[in-house]
């Protein structure tokens, strides 16, 4: 038995860094940038956890993971048990360990972080869940006796995978519908291989399939069958179809060739593997001078993809300042290391093209920051007469998503708000009994972990409905 460390000894251990592929090398490949930890590093980092009686990290984890519990098991060297603790709460721990913004979630409230650096919870999560995916298999856990209730989950993204995983464990008969040819949603088509290997997504989905979730791909709810039709066949339905429609700037020239939405550029590259063209048949433009408009994680993914795929120079054009960028600091740093240039306080006003209809430039205005707007961030205001042109041969517009109406249009009685998102209470209940919704199609584009959190709450609400007398509260929209 290993000696228990004192609090002082735990505090004395410095937080461990994540080794990365060398920037010069990694811009020439599509392999994962973050290389992961060996067992010694993980065990030593795990010793930093103070094992708080009232763990603040857990209160800020939408997936409700027993964080001290799994970290403790890593410190003890029982990695499989650590993975089991993770999987008891989350269907996507290997994904979350990579893409969850821990610095604003569990690690933000980690007590260690008050005086020292917080425990690297995300990296530990990744270590333990990878161990159970690649080194030693977790036995399939026992699930509750069949309830005889049938549940349809619409959309195999983070929210849907979570709901399916939680409800199947409770004994319900779950069918997971996916519009594309593979499950994963944004984890598959949006987040690039170099940040989240697709093998990880595939393996995590396999785990819930082993639990008994039936996966149906190439099934577009809203087209192949309506939500109303699903309700004839199923006792409850979860709508987790994602925001699913790219936003554009609506400025002149935006439909020139070479101008992409981030969704299109990333879907071609990630889902369709256009970066391996022509071995994979889907084409994608091979821009040399690329501008990506936006400052979120999706913009970082697109700009870093462009460098790997074809570009000599890739630039972020963002209309606010660095401080207001919604992207994770880690991703901004990764992009900078790889040679991405950032231009702040710039607003594109139109796209210029050549005689063949291909984009050649982005005409921009310089901005200055004014008073804070509704989001609390200082509103950018254009400076008159400051027009200039950025030379490009490819542009990616990464300014967000709006609601795709295909699912909602066939869901009688499931009300949407003025922007097309489903109205749901705090637990995901919509205005129609038996129908819950969660993830981006309720909140608008957000993070993977918030979708997982919404999925967990909705799964509980649906289980309650399926186990009870079928009562359904009057839904007041959750703010």
């Amino acid at each position, binding site marked *: 038995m290993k000696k228990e460390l004192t609090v002082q000894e735990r505090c004395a251990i410095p937080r461990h860094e994540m080794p990365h592929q060398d920037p010069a090398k990694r811009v020439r490949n599509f392999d994962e940038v973050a290389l992961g930890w060996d067992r010694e590093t993980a065990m030593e980092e795990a010793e930093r956890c103070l094992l708080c009686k009232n763990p603040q990290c857990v209160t800020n984890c939408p997936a409700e993971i027993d964080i001290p519990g799994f970290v403790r098991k890593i410190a003890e060297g029982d990695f499989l048990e650590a993975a089991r603790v993770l999987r008891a709460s989350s269907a996507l721990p290997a994904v979350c360990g990579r893409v969850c913004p821990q610095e604003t979630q569990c690690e933000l409230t980690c007590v260690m972080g008050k005086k020292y650096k917080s425990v690297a919870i995300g990296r530990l999560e990744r270590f333990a869940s990878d161990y159970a995916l690649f080194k030693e298999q977790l036995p399939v856990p026992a699930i509750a006796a069949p309830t005889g209730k049938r549940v349809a989950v619409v959309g195999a993204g983070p929210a849907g995978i979570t709901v399916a995983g939680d409800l199947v464990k409770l004994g319900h008969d779950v069918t997971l519908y996916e*519009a*594309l*040819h593979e499950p994963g949603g944004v984890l598959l*088509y949006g987040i690039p291989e170099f940040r989240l290997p697709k093998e990880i997504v595939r393996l995590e989905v396999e785990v819930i399939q082993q639990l008994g979730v039936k996966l149906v*791909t*190439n*099934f*577009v709810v809203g*087209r*192949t*069958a309506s939500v109303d039709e699903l309700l004839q066949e199923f006792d409850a339905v979860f709508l987790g179809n994602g925001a*699913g*429609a*790219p936003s*554009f700037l*609506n400025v002149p020239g*935006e*439909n020139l*060739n*070479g101008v*992409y*939405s981030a*969704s*299109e550029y990333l*879907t*071609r590259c990630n889902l*369709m*593997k256009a970066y391996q*063209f*022509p*071995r*994979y*048949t*889907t*084409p994608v*433009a091979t821009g040399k001078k690329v501008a990506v408009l936006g400052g979120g994680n999706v913009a970082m993914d697109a700009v870093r993809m462009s460098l790997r795929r074809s570009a000599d120079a890739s630039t972020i054009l963002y209309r606010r300042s660095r401080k207001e960028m919604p992207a994770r600091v880690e991703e901004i740093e990764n992009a900078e290391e790889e040679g991405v240039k950032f231009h702040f306080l710039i607003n594109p006003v139109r796209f210029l093209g050549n005689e*063949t*209809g291909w984009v050649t430039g982005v005409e921009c205005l310089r901005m200055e920051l004014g008073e804070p707007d509704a989001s609390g961030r200082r509103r950018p205001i254009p400076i008159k007469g400051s027009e200039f042109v950025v030379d490009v041969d490819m542009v990616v517009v990464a300014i967000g998503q709006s609601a*795709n*109406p*295909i699912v909602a249009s066939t869901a009688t009685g499931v009300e949407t708000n003025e922007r097309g998102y489903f109205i749901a209470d705090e637990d995901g209940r919509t205005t129609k009994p038996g129908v819950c919704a969660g993830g981006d199609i309720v909140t608008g584009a957000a993070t993977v972990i918030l979708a997982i959190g919404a999925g967990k709450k909705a799964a509980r609400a649906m289980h309650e409905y399926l186990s009870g007398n079928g009562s359904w509260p009057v839904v007041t929209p959750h703010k």
Partner: protein
Amino acid sequence: MHTILLKKILTERTWHMRVAAPLIARKCQAGQFLMLRIHENGERIPLTIANWDREAGTIDIYFQEIGATTELLASMKEGDTILDVVGPLGNPTHVEKLDGTFVMVGGGFGIAAGYPVARAFKEAGNRVIAVLGAKTKNLLICEDLLKSVCDEVLVATNDGSYGSQGMVSDVLQSLLDGGEKIVLVYPVGPPIMMKVISQMTLPLKLKTIVSLNSVMVDGTGMCGSCRVTVAGRTRFVCSEGIDFDGHEVNWDEMMSRQKMYSRQEKEALEYYHEHGGCQGGCQ
């Protein structure tokens, strides 16, 4: 997996296939399309659903060999399987009883896409005329199919080898000159033909609905690859169409966007010719 149940060559490089797709056959309506991906390494391409049998669970597609994917599809045999077929996608064509004649103007293999629409308008109790165009007699497809659902089928060939000599627009003009009370024109085929027809009917204020065929990836409104400017506003063909008012479409932009990948399409075709169909992707 979707089995190819029937494969027929119609003219040089133009094919008709019947594919098992019960979920699509159950639901599809005139004007809708599907996306297919032949194997693991393949691209997703949109094709109009030209016919269906709800009982048998089959759908019919027509396509021309113009690139790597369509050449590969044409090389497949009855009994072979297509990995992914998804649909029905797009909005069904708005069909109603009209106060006058419905004219479907079909060009090339677009004629097949116009067939279910002509049939739907006929079933809604309308007088339906089909105007079919081809370069030459041998390249004309689906004439009998259209005859089975139309009051009249008129053909124009560029070389005059069959029907009247000239363009489909000439036939439409002579219908108008002859006093036919046309209230809705539905051109489907090459964009240039749809543009010409739309330009011709604009000054006549003759309602013209076109069926657009854009470059797509997912086919469900997720990516915006298919976007086109209609009445000055960007619209997604896959989720908001595929039918639009022909008088409001920015045709030059639409045609330019269709050529976005012409260089890569050539490269993909060369790769296909060198490496063969499966590219390591199918069994």
